[in-house]
């Protein structure tokens, strides 16, 4: 993804019925949807940018105006007010012929109920957009075959849509849109008519295609889980207005208002949130250069039974238990290395919560989280993980830390002894 803006929508309004312009004026002056008389406001003041190669999801319940909004992005519904630019070119206020040209070359669409031409074979459906672009039959069939293969429909070219399952039909719809090679792809509830297993499969395939082809996608859905799964950014719509635009995590952790908050309650957080959104600062870490004495002191002060060991640049080395360090101290060792265990089981910071449960159970310490360069960036205690699923990230503030560090008295005695000399320490400890 880069920062070029593929699609820019500014102050879009769509009002159906008479006196639409008056209604827009009233809405601009703060009137609500119910206060504009007989006219129906489907979209109110929608503004957003979609970046190149981004999946921008517009999410809302039925009647929220999302289908109208997406149809304004390619002029199927002329806007009542506002502007839309695709690739820097305005599609609002142009002639019908210019608009058709833009639709042929800049923006294509995938429909909820597939909208295939039932009297044409799969390959001719895929080639439909190319046919309108004016490609010769041989050229368009060649390209259509390639795309058909990419979406996994090779061997089905000569079948008719009625002979295909829903998922396959939508693949044809997707192939038809991809074949035209437009920068922007509009997907109107594209997977909503499919059953859940197929839907999941199609979502994965879309993400895969997206990473290969790098299309800019505007995806409409009423399914929040789908939005969270697919979206780089999500716009939540309610009653014709966009109430929040943000990344899935933004929406989940910082809902803009009560509506969004209610909406996100049902989301499977464990799939959306990643390790770095729930991790905490480690209470204490030990530098690999410090000796057993310093390490034990730190653990005593922090009431820890174990701690992670990192290098100066915070690269994770391993972890130590207080008992092992205590042994070293009693032996009078000056080097911590022999006590360091390397089976820390740390996870990458972009691991989703669903994949954290087993590692947290296996780890002796709060689970370590590292970044791309293997530096320790945080830890996830089990309680934090559980609390984050309940939707209250701060609930663990009062939760107790891992129990049973060594009794302070024992540690103190050992430390004091080591101050006097290694030999005595060892003797007393026995």
């Amino acid at each position, binding site marked *: 993804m880069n920062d070029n803006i593929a699609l820019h929508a500014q102050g879009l309004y769509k009002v159906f019925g008479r006196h639409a312009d008056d209604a827009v004026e009233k809405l601009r002056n703060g009137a609500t949807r119910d206060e504009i008389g007989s006219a129906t406001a489907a979209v109110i003041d929608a503004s957003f940018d979609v970046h190149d190669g981004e999946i921008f999801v517009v999410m809302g319940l039925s009647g929220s105006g999302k289908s109208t909004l997406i149809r304004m992005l390619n002029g199927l519904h002329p806007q009542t007010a506002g502007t839309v630019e695709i690739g820097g070119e305005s599609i609002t206020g142009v002639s019908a012929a210019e608009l058709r040209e833009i639709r042929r070359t800049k923006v294509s669409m995938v429909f909820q109920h597939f*909208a295939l031409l039932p009297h044409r074979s799969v390959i001719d459906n895929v080639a439909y957009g190319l046919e309108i672009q004016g490609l010769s039959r041989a050229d368009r069939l060649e390209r259509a075959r390639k795309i058909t293969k990419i979406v996994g429909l090779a061997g089905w070219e000569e079948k008719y849509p009625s002979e295909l399952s829903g998922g396959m039909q939508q693949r044809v719809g997707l192939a038809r849109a991809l074949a035209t090679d437009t920068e922007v792809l509009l997907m109107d509830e594209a997977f909503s008519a499919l059953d859940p297993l197929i839907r999941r499969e199609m979502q994965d395939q879309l993400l895969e295609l997206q990473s290969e082809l790098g299309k800019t996608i505007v995806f409409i859905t009423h399914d929040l889980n789908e939005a969270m799964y697919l979206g780089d950014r999500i716009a939540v719509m309610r009653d014709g207005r966009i109430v929040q635009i943000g990344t899935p995590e933004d929406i989940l952790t910082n809902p803009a208002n009560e509506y969004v908050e209610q909406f996100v309650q049902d989301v499977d957080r464990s799939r959306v949130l990643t390790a770095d959104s729930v991790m905490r600062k480690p209470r204490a870490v030990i530098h690999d250069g410090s000796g057993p004495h310093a390490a034990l002191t730190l653990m005593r002060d922090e009431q820890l039974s174990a701690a992670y060991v990192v290098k100066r640049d915070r690269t994770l080395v391993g972890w130590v238990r207080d008992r092992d360090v205590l042994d070293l101290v009693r032996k009078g060792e000056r080097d911590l290395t022999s006590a360091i265990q390397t089976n820390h089981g740390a996870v990458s910071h972009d691991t989703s919560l669903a994949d954290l449960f087993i590692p947290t159970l296996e780890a002796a310490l709060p689970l370590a989280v590292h970044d791309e360069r293997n530096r320790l960036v945080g830890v996830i205690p089990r309680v934090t993980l559980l609390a984050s699923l309940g939707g209250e990230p701060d609930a663990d503030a009062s939760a107790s830390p891992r129990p049973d560090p060594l009794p302070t008295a024992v540690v103190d005695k050992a430390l004091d002894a080591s101050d006097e000399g290694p030999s005595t320490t060892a003797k007393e400890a026995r």
Partner: protein
Amino acid sequence: MDFRIPVGDWIDSLFKWIGAHFGGLFDVLKALFVGLNDALVWVFATPPAIVVILVIAAAGYLARGWRFAIGVVLGLLFVVGVGQWDNATDTLGLVLVAAFLAIIIAIPLGIWAAKNDTVSKVVKPLMDFLQTLPAFVYLIPALAFFGIGVAPGVIATLIFALAPGVRLTELGIRGVDSEVVEAGQAFGASPRRILRQIQIPLAMPSIMAGINQIIMLALSMVVIAGLVGAGGLGGDVAKAISSLRTGLGFEAGLSVVVLAIILDRFTGSFGQDMGLYSKLRGRRNKAKAADEQARLEAEEIIDKGPWLMPGAGR
């Protein structure tokens, strides 16, 4: 009180005015109707009956299959047997001319009405009016303008048969899944192209039902057309009524039934996968697909290079 709306007078003067100003137009129309009718009748009546019957039966075989072909032969032999063959060819000519004209008016009108709500609002009551006004009534001005003969028969039949064609075309086009039409728009197709490639093909079953209805209604008008001298089977029915000849009436009437069944089955088979024609077409498509597949595989081998082909290496 003498309450009287002089509608009759108004209509009279209206038609007088039309007759005075558009007389030339009616002459042209009359020549057209008569010419078309004569041409068609010539086609049916010139060859021996058995040849025409076999040709129709062959067409029936292509359209629906051999059962229908046998039915056609038996039915038409019956018509010949009761001495109505000449009348039947006259009637067939009249029906086909009227139906053809009705179709070329009804389908564009239906499409226009489907695309434009205002047109639809005007056309609907007009069609209701034409269909419910007793046929005899508009036969009167038709007679006045065209005189006795085929022409008033054609025009009366045409008007009567128009309505279902317009209605079913409009219904069919409006009933096309709006998402599919949107798909055409979304990919930048022009309205004309959407009409040609999406709306008409998808509305075809409904349009075909309209054409079927047009032909059926046209046939039901032949008796009335017979009354005004259009001849054919209707002429014999009219003769039988005026002279109370039950036998003749039934012979002509049953011949109408035979024609009706044959025409109905013919038009009903359009757009459905029946008969030899669609079988042949299906086979051809499959062969084409297989060719294409073979070509692709060949290309793939060429792409991979000759060294992958058996026997090409060292």
